[in-house]
């Protein structure tokens, strides 16, 4: 039986890959969660300093290659661009909670060698979405909450029942 894509969280942030703040999309299937990074360019003071001295490429190469998350091969997506992939069957602990900087996702799992791995990401609604909803009369706080709750619903649907049952969720 094939792997089924459950949904996509288009915007989240994490410092996991390089220790600096980076944006990523989170694609969730019924078997795994993939943090797909937008580029190899982290965001932070150190990165910004490097960015200044980087030779500016022409606008055509500056534009990222769009990924069609509906059709992209999941095995390819899992390994491209240093993306992070977590098998749901290996998850030992999952926490989705509200923090100071937004809603955070914490996943603790064991890899094939039995080594503990942690995924930590902040599910923050993109500012364009918040602006759009604000213009429709939805307060910014509510727009962010709705986005985070949709993301939570996505994880609840995708996780195996044993993981979902043990997990900590936002009320």
């Amino acid at each position: 039986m094939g792997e089924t894509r459950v949904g996509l969280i288009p915007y989240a942030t994490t410092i996991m890959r390089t220790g600096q703040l980076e944006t990523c999309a989170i694609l969730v299937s019924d078997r795994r969660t993939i943090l797909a990074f937008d580029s190899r360019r982290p965001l932070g003071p150190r990165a910004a300093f490097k960015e200044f001295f980087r030779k500016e490429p022409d606008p055509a190469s500056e534009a990222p290659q769009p990924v069609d998350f509906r059709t992209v091969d999941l095995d390819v997506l899992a390994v491209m661009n240093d993306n992070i992939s977590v098998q749901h069957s290996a998850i030992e602990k999952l926490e989705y909670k509200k923090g100071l900087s937004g809603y955070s996702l914490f996943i603790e799992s064991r890899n094939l060698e039995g080594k503990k791995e942690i995924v930590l990401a902040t599910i923050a609604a993109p500012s364009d979405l918040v602006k759009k909803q604000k213009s429709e009369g939805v307060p910014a706080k509510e727009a962010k909450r709705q986005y985070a709750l949709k993301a939570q619903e996505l994880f609840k649907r995708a996780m195996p029942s044993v993981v979902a049952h043990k997990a900590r969720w936002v009320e």
Partner: protein
Amino acid sequence: MKSGWWVTVVWIAMLAVAMPIGWFYSSDAIEGSAHLTVPEGASTFASYRVDDVEGFSLSGEFSSSTDSPVELMILDEGEYLKFLANSSYVAEFRAVAISGEFSVDKPSMETCHIVVRHGAGLIVPQEVEVSYTISAVNPVGMLSAYGFAFGGGLLIVYDGWKRHKKHEEIVRESKPLDVIFFDSESR
């Protein structure tokens, strides 16, 4: 660096301002020396006035021409007046030796007096050579220099961050805005 050319220019200009300030305030040191003669007599002394030491540190060496020790003191203006009036005073530095070093770090002292008198027992005239250095480190000047350099660095970070945001914008435009639930699609 096409879009950030003005940042480069401003940064170089800031460094151009920062470097001379830093150089001027950190590398400059005023040196001086004095030849003092302590006259004959038990309570006689010789003194030398050093001006404009406020905010700086004063250090130096002294040596007596005889084999007998001298007493060297460093007094600020107020204490020196007390010393002259034979009332009790507090020295910033005091040493009794044939030769030695001294050092005073007192930013609030505008003027100081180097006072030399006979060490115990000797009442014949005594020659003393004193050399000193005022290390001219002005914290305000140094901070200005660091401020300009740091400001230039911040400008670079800001420019890089702005460019990164532009890149992020392009990335965002290529993605959906909201969370998507796929209908049961198998790969």
